[in-house]
């Protein structure tokens, strides 16, 4: 369970997120809204990449401010651009790095990493340089590396924005099937509509909150053209 209690985020004098209280208990939650509306900041609050100026965030009872390592063990994060997230030379090594973090013994990491890659249809890319992969393959790899740690919550910041239609669909399928609570900020309204609940974020405020189909339809109707 994720809870935001009167959370406000300030950047100097500017209010990035106005005081917001939320409880996120659904299996999948989407955040929609224009660029600069505060979606990414709301996501970053969930694993301590941003700390609230006022109020508090609770992830299964832990505050990122006071139990950062515990929160990050529980909350996996996928970024828009996978390039910053992939730090090892090959695909299998990057997944193995995640397994190292969660204490998988050295001798078992390679085989386990290959199993995880195979489960995402990436077995043939295991020994390829991450720089040789397409954007879509890199995003799937970044997702596999995050899921390798077994997070209870999967937070994704516009994970399909840089992808072609085929890979956007594949990444969306993996996200929605992941064995974790999904919180995703996205401009991909098809993905948002497949979640259980959606929040429409505008100018640092949640202006609409409800079943994803309703919120996405209202947001779509508000867009010019």
């Amino acid at each position: 369970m994720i809870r935001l209690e009167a959370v406000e985020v300030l950047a100097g004098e500017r209010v990035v997120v106005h005081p917001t209280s939320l409880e996120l208990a659904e299996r999948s939650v989407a955040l929609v809204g224009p660029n600069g509306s505060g979606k990414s900041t709301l996501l970053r609050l969930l694993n301590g990449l941003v700390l609230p100026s006022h109020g508090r965030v609770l992830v299964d009872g832990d505050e990122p401010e006071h139990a950062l390592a515990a929160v990050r063990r529980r909350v996996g994060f996928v970024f828009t651009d996978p390039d910053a997230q992939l730090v090892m030379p090959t695909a299998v090594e990057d997944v193995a790095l995640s397994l190292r973090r969660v204490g998988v013994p050295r001798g078992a990491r390679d085989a386990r990493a290959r199993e995880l890659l195979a489960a995402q249809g990436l077995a043939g890319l295991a020994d390829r340089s991450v720089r040789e992969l397409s954007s879509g393959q890199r995003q799937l790899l970044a997702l596999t590396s995050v899921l390798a740690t077994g997070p209870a919550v999967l937070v994704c910041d516009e994970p399909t924005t840089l992808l072609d239609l085929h890979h956007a669909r594949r990444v969306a399928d993996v996200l929605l099937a992941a064995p974790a609570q999904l919180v995703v900020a996205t401009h991909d309204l098809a993905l948002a509509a497949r979640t259980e609940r959606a929040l429409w974020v505008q100018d640092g405020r949640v202006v609409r909150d409800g079943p994803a189909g309703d919120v996405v339809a209202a947001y779509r109707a508000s867009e010019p053209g």
Partner: protein
Amino acid sequence: MSRRPGRGPRGLDAGAPLLGRHRPGTSALHRARPGPKLAGLAAVGLVAGLARAQAPAAPALALLAVLLLAVAAGALAAGLGVAYLAGQLRRLAAVLVLLGAVQWLTRGPLVAAAVLAGLVSCVWAAATVTGTTPVPVLLDAVVRALRPLRGLGVDPDRVGLALLLAVTSIPVVAGLLTDSRAAAAARGLPRDPRAVLVPTVLRTVAHAHAVSEALAARGLVDD
């Protein structure tokens, strides 16, 4: 800007790691533990440095020639191949030519040969280590070697990760440089260093920030 077909952009190869990718195999070097291999690499560097300092004395030149041949023989015995070794030189061709020319002009051809032989020995030795050892194994070895320094405040995981990032970021920065060159050429400023260097530096800093955020998010480092 025209480019000959089949040729990549000049400069560092953004798609390849600087010191050669791991090539699975069953040679003695592949089976050897990473610690002795890293110690061997350090020894090559030490011998190359000491011998180069004595150049152009004949024993020093002979020692450098033997060192170069021994390193090459070791790489070939590990099955890395002539093309693999040549690839390391191709990436550094501009540096080698410039360094050799400066040494030749300032200190003569024998010293230039000694400097290049020492440098190439070190590059091939390093490429042999990375070619026969997966990066995670090297990372574990570095972390293990640094553990005794924990009492002095050294965080072995953090240092190991920093070294890893230093190596793996080279092709990323090379890619940013290539992109900036292309963007400058598209704006009609292919020879303006500001149009290439300023965006490269800014994007490198932005990339470093993004990597640090991603590492924190992956739980690999604390903020």
